[in-house]
């Protein structure tokens, strides 16, 4: 978070440029270096994706095939999926994860953008103290706050019934890192543009909503995606707060398959597939934006 100044941030939004081909022109001939590069990357790539394939392959094998080793299933079946779906509450956990991730992501996008904008474009007494007060929370590990949060949730009944959604989401509805990130990005929005809108009599909220925010859309999209993924995969806090099966999020519900007899790996792999495949599909669809977003925000942060 402290290195941005040294990275020469241009304050513009040229995401695509980071991934412009490194060496254009000069038609390449066969080269050993290139061949070795591909070879090493391929070996590494196999190590990265094999666990996923193995997870999915195991999930479509009938139980006896787990013992007599064969890489590919001989009689692929979806029976494991039916069994797991019938004996657990996966549909409910999907719903819970979607609700929680949507609550926090919507809120983060709105407030982080608004506050980041305010800290960049407005001048007001107490600005430095507020900025430091927000940024300072980044030093506090959330693990230190879980006991106080749990106490607060119990006091205010956020751990009961449908308010559990709020209980699971509340620690992440505004993020200091996101505010800091958006503040950086609003550097790229020229003040003259905002002043012109002021001359035209637009109110400040409208200026932010209609003029400034649309100009940093790629950054907002990146912020939204990371928050969604982060909340979707959040584990420790939902594990502590959700007090009944119906309110587990996906990772929490999945974790209880650990107690599943460890001889039933096909069941555990089916559950793991059910929990991870939706987000992997989302990732594959938006991989370009996600990876560019990581690069963009990483370099900004």
């Amino acid at each position, binding site marked *: 978070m402290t*290195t941005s100044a040294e990275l020469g941030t241009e304050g513009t939004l040229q995401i695509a440029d980071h991934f412009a081909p490194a060496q254009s022109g000069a038609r390449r001939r066969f080269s050993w270096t290139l061949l070795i590069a591909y070879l090493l990357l391929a070996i590494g790539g196999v190590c990265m994706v094999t666990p996923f394939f193995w997870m999915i392959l195991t999930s479509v094998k009938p139980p006896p095939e787990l013992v007599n080793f064969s890489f590919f299933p001989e009689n692929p079946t979806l029976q494991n999926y039916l069994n797991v779906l019938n004996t657990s509450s996966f549909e409910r956990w999907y719903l819970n994860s979607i609700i929680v991730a949507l609550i926090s992501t919507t809120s983060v996008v709105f407030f982080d953008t608004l506050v980041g904008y305010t800290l960049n474009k407005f001048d007001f007494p107490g600005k430095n103290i507020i900025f430091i007060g927000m940024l300072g929370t980044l030093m506090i590990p959330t693990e230190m706050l879980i006991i106080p949060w749990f106490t607060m949730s119990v006091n205010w009944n956020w751990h009961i019934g449908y308010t559990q959604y709020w209980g699971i989401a509340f620690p992440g509805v505004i993020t200091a890192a996101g505010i800091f990130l958006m503040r950086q990005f609003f550097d790229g929005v020229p003040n003259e543009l905002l002043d012109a809108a002021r001359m035209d009599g637009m109110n400040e909220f409208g200026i932010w909503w209609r003029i400034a925010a649309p100009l940093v859309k790629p950054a907002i999209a990146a912020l939204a995606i990371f928050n969604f993924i982060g909340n979707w*995969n959040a584990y420790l806090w939902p594990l502590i707060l959700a007090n009944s099966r119906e309110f587990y999020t996906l990772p929490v519900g999945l974790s209880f398959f650990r107690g599943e007899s460890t001889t039933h790996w096909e069941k555990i792999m089916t559950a793991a597939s059910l929990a991870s495949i939706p987000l992997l599909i989302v990732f594959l669809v938006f991989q370009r934006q996600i*990876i560019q977003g990581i690069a963009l925000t990483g370099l900004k942060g």
Partner: protein
Amino acid sequence: MRLTLRQRQIIWAYIFMSVALVFFVVIRWYPTILAFNVSFRDWNVFEGTGPWVGLENYQEIWQDAGKPRSSVTAAFSNTVRYVLFGVPSQLVLALAIALLLAQIRRLSAVFRVAYFAPYVTSAVAVAFVWNWLYQPETGLINQALDLVGLPQQPFTKSPAQALPSITAVAVWQNLGFAVIIFLAGIQQIPGHYYEAARIDGANAWQLFWRITLPLLNPIIVYLTVLGTISYLRLFALVQNMSPQGTGGPLKSTTTVVLEVYREGFSSYKMGYAGALTVLLFFLILLITIIQLRFFSRRVEY
């Protein structure tokens, strides 16, 4: 009453920040103070208070640490070992992969997706898949070892191998993030630096040590700090990869956060757990400050 433009700006700024200010005070700073408070009390979470016991919780931790084979000592020493094994391997591997990716054009996107996919997957699902891969007899890795005539390994079943085995999974999962950040950094280095150095007769090795590495310094610092913090907070992988989720075998994999969870939310020793989180906070703070002081060198070209 007519307000000046500046006065109106101040009012707007505070309206824009109002919700966030409440959030940071109530959900971040107040719980931070409460966390310290909890650590000095015999805290009962359901009453939301408890008698003040001064430093007793810390003394108890200190005494426990003195006992042979104590969980506390294991937790802190394991946590440091996760950092020492995990962070350097993650950084070196990620830099190597990023350097290779910077060489190639074709299939580059495919490799990026492969390396990044584990990062968007839930740690619980990742833990389960690797439990299955590490399994004795039927696990894919031991099958492969058999195939090439090597002896089977116990991996997470043995106190000696469990921690490195889990560290390897953490590296596997987090590698992609570091790769993408490194790659973006490498591609930001202006090509004419290399051209100029080549004209002066520098070889590839010198280009790397004299140009690439120094210019990546801010990114290395950023990834070191971020990586260290994430390994200091390791929880989900360990809980889901150790027998009964207790950090075994023989406490060989337990971490500070896992002990916080067990003491606070299984044994309901909230004060004790609170004191552990405060110690974790100071550990993170200390290590981060040391890293920032010793690794940040400004490089000007």
